[in-house]
């Protein structure tokens, strides 16, 4: 069972106290975006084997959303951090690097949404 630390209230709790919320740092394409960009925002996912940035909500606690860096293969949680950020803070990147020196930092939204189009 996963144990997560809620960065909002500081409680360390088991995963049953939290609600998973999917991939983090997705960049919403604003008014004027193309259908392709909007489709990528809504549906295209990295779904990585390895370091994964994701959203969680402390559903049976303080109720607030936060973000986590977690490994989808080992289930190791590298760090949790507040959701009010567009990219992982340096201490989170450092924590991942400490455990996974070979890790290439990348949390970007799909840079090439047009490549997902099958006609």
């Amino acid at each position: 069972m996963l144990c997560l630390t809620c960065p909002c209230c500081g409680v360390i709790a088991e995963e049953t106290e939290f609600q998973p919320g999917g991939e983090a740092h997705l960049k919403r394409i604003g008014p004027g975006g193309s259908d392709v960009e909007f489709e990528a925002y809504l549906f295209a996912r990295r779904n990585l084997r390895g370091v994964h940035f994701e959203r969680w909500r402390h559903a049976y606690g303080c109720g607030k959303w936060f973000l986590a860096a977690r490994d989808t293969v080992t289930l190791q949680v590298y760090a949790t951090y507040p959701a009010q950020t567009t990219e992982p803070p340096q201490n989170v990147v450092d924590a991942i690097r400490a455990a996974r020196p070979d890790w290439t930092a990348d949390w970007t939204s799909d840079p090439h949404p047009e490549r997902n189009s099958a006609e």
Partner: protein
Amino acid sequence: MTTATRSGRYSVFAIAREAFRQHQGWQRAWADPQPKDRYKVVIVGAGGHGLATAYYLGRNFGITDVAILEKGWLGGGNTGRNTTIIRSNYLQDASAAIYNKSLTLYETLSQDLNYNIMFSPRGLIMLAQTEHEVRGYKRTVYANMLQGVSTEWIEPARVKELVPIINLDGPRYPVLGGLYQARGGTARHDAVAWGYARACSDMGMHVIQNCEVQGIETEAGQVRAVNTTRGRIGCDKLALVVAGHSSHLADMAGFRLPIESVALQALVSEPIKPCMDVVVMANTVHGYMSQSDKGEMVIGGGTDGFNNFTQRGSWHHVEETVRALVETFPMISRLKMLRQWGGIVDMTGDRSPILSTTPVGGIYVNCGWGTGGFKAIPGSGWAMAELIANGRPGPLAAAFGLNRFREGRFIDESVAAGVAH
């Protein structure tokens, strides 16, 4: 090219013949070939769906220059990890068409493959345990009538008649009725993979195990080859049929899929005397149960809510599932559980599969079967073979293209079937 050794036809006469010579004459069921430099079609993933795709490419389209690559062992992924439930009681027309095709193919698959897949159409009940489910399943029955899929709504008394060990009264989860499909049932999951593999090998196809794809070569938007742990293998067409690892392979080809991978788990009890001869699914509590031929109670549970590649599952989901099932089936409360395992399933937003062309010419994907792929194996292979052979989807696959996500043409089965597929 060396021709594959034919495995010989299985029959009562073959058994009698072998009995007289100490069973010395049985051949390997499928060959273990060295990969060639090039194939017309390369299929990644020798699970049920990949092997069925290859089989119908050969049988329906005469394409036999095919390799099926498997990173582990044959049928060692979700094909060997599911709870073997077969049914076609889906709500949407597109789903009913492909799942019912699949069920129809399953009914004669042992004869087609000359391999006993132990198909057991013992009947299947989806329990309605809330008023919402009663309305939902009645709606499905009406939809199935229009689709020509035979299902019926049954009242609690009939449920009790079919499943004497059930407790109808709850109190948390009362049984208010059920969606019954008499044609539904189970099959031996390994045998489905083995039967298809043997038939593919007999047609001269190469089933190559321990061969992991590590890269996909493309040139001017067209697939050229795959790089594997057993060397570079060229191909005209490439099919990715790898369930939970679809995103990983799509990434090698340079595109992203609307898929998230999560762990789904199951467990089996110690074997007991026959006590339940139908499959019972309880979607409200995310539990489903059948009894295997060995007497084990096979129990399927829910999925983890987060991205996960561990093939393990988690304790609290086992507890939730079993706690609820014990109320509905009080006699299982003292059963010891023998094994628990997990598989990595590929979930789409609308809980329907993807059979599609991709942005890269010559690459086709078959994925997104999520928690319910086993039942779909023959129909999926049939539709996928048509897609690969013609380069465009036939009637069964047409609705399941990737473009449905842009166009908003979802095939919304999450409402129809709950979590348990």
